[in-house]
């Protein structure tokens, strides 16, 4: 089966030549793990929203760091330190171009997206919020964009508010706007829901927040693997994503922050790397981004992330989005034919995530049974318990798409789900 042609037919991408050049079989050959068998079956990996698999160029770029270009960065005068520093900072430049940031000084490396949110909940709160001031999130958030604000609530006395969704998982712009108040100091919300796939209209959110001079922080973990993101076109003030979901390594996350806002924020952690000078009486700090990068950073991981960005950029995010949109439509059609299956999250605008429940089978039982057919999906609350509660559920099963998935993968999923329906009747 030729997925390149079928996906191009489903939704023609800009420039027919390049759309035809999206060759999923050639892409799959770049991912060594996809040759693995699981329980004797070919691996059908539909859990990229939890963590994406890695293409050979990423694996090799990290190997090259350790084999030929490794030392600590920003430290030594020796050759290897210079080579490693250049490679590390080249990673920062790639991230800046990936997000279309104005400057690489606006790119802060963290351990993961969760750490980026904790950094914001600490440093942004201390810089800009007083007790009683409000942070507005949405009902779609991952725990990483809830719990850090609750910790800040305990520590600094801030108030956490939540903008609602409808039963289909649509973000409600007017309801959101109605919650922007005189004490709202930050809007922090997801670009794409990890549990439902809902795409939030971020540009319009920003327009309405900025009309009241309220900055906006966006969780881009589920957006960056699936669509081109331009932080200046969106006009966001902060943008967070993680390396491992965009086909890069674990251990590296990114916080983009508008330069003038980062400059006002105090450090998150103290230590080496982030200081200008230290004495026992007084320490002065470096300018951003280094102010927020205490200690030895994830050196090989940043290089690996740079390689991942090159990889998806060479293929083209618009072609990846078109491929996944075609697959998602196909998957929703195939899954809707499974007896007793209900898709959860019917938002008008969705990325490559299909959450579902079945009448008589709990998501955990679904996950266990289809795993024996080699099909990997996530089951549970997806680190979004308040969202599950809002929908009256405790858990769903979630199939999430990556650029390497095929219609064959969806067929295997559908076959396995028919078997679940037979067992549980």
């Amino acid at each position, binding site marked *: 089966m030729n997925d390149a042609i079928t996906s191009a037919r489903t939704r023609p991408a800009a420039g027919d030549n390049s759309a035809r050049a999206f060759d999923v079989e050639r892409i799959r050959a770049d991912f060594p793990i996809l040759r693995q068998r699981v329980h004797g079956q070919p691996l059908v990996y539909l859990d990229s929203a939890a963590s994406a698999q890695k293409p050979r160029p990423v694996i090799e770029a990290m190997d090259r760091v350790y084999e030929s270009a490794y030392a600590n960065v920003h430290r030594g005068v020796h050759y290897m330190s210079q080579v490693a520093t250049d490679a590390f900072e080249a990673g920062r430049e790639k991230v800046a171009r990936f997000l279309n940031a104005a400057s690489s000084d606006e790119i802060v490396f963290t351990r993961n997206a969760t750490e980026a949110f904790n950094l914001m909940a600490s440093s942004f709160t201390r810089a800009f919020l007083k007790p009683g001031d409000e942070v507005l999130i949405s009902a779609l958030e991952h725990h990483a964009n809830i719990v850090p604000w609750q910790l800040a609530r305990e520590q600094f006395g801030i108030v956490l508010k939540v903008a609602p969704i409808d039963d289909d998982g649509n973000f409600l712009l007017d309801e959101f706007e109605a919650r922007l108040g005189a004490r709202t100091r930050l809007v922090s919300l997801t670009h794409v829901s990890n549990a439902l796939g809902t795409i939030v209209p971020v540009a319009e959110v920003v327009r309405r927040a900025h009309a009241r001079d309220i900055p906006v922080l966006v969780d881009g973990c589920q957006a960056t693997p699936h669509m081109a993101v331009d932080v200046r076109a969106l006009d966001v003030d902060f943008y967070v994503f993680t390396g491992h979901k965009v086909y890069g390594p674990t251990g590296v996350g990114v916080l983009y922050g508008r330069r003038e806002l980062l400059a006002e924020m105090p450090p998150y952690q103290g230590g080496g790397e982030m200081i200008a000078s230290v004495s026992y009486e007084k320490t002065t700090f470096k300018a951003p981004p280094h102010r927020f990068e205490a200690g030895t950073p994830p050196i090989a991981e940043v290089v690996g992330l740079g390689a991942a960005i090159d990889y998806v950029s060479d293929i083209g995010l618009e072609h990846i989005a078109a491929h996944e949109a075609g697959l998602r439509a196909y998957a929703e059609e195939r899954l809707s034919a499974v007896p007793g299956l209900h898709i959860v999250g019917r938002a008008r605008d969705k990325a490559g995530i299909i959450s579902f429940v079945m009448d008589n089978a709990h998501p955990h039982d679904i996950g266990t*049974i289809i795993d*024996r057919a080699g099909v990997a999906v996530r089951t549970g609350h997806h680190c979004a318990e308040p969202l599950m509660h809002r929908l009256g559920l405790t858990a769903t099963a979630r199939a999430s798409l990556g650029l390497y998935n095929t219609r064959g993968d969806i067929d295997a999923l559908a076959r396995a789900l028919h078997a679940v329906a037979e067992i549980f009747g």
Partner: protein
Amino acid sequence: MLDDLRDLYQEVILDHGRNPRNLRRPAEANRHARGHNPMCGDSLVVHLTLDPGGIIRDVAFEGKGCAISVASASLMTEVLKGKTRDQATALFRRFHELCTSDEEDDGSSDEAGAVDPDDLDRLRVLSGVRAFPMRVKCATLAWHTMAAAMNGEEEVSTE
């Protein structure tokens, strides 16, 4: 269906999962605990009616969950009625072993008569979880919760 899946989802388990026994809250119950499985967000509440002599006069539960956790809770309520605290504890230990270990304990460390072999045989339908280490917590959640209720704890988590 594959053999290990057939072992896990035996008809008895599917039946208890669909039609759990003792899914209720007895008015006279005097020990209650909530058990929580953070991996899936499922939780259930176990209600024990302990008499002054430490005998379990009634045991029931409330909650929703996967077929394994509900079937296990249901089967547990059937075997625990009339047991002493020590018998319940010994049965939990043996049940935990049959869910996790290929080599079942012969019971020689139990007090004589602590574990009725018929009870253990009834619970053996859940031993298929051995092949699914991620699911052992589903099978043992109700038992951990029961033990917490006996010990006067109100919350227990399988983490």
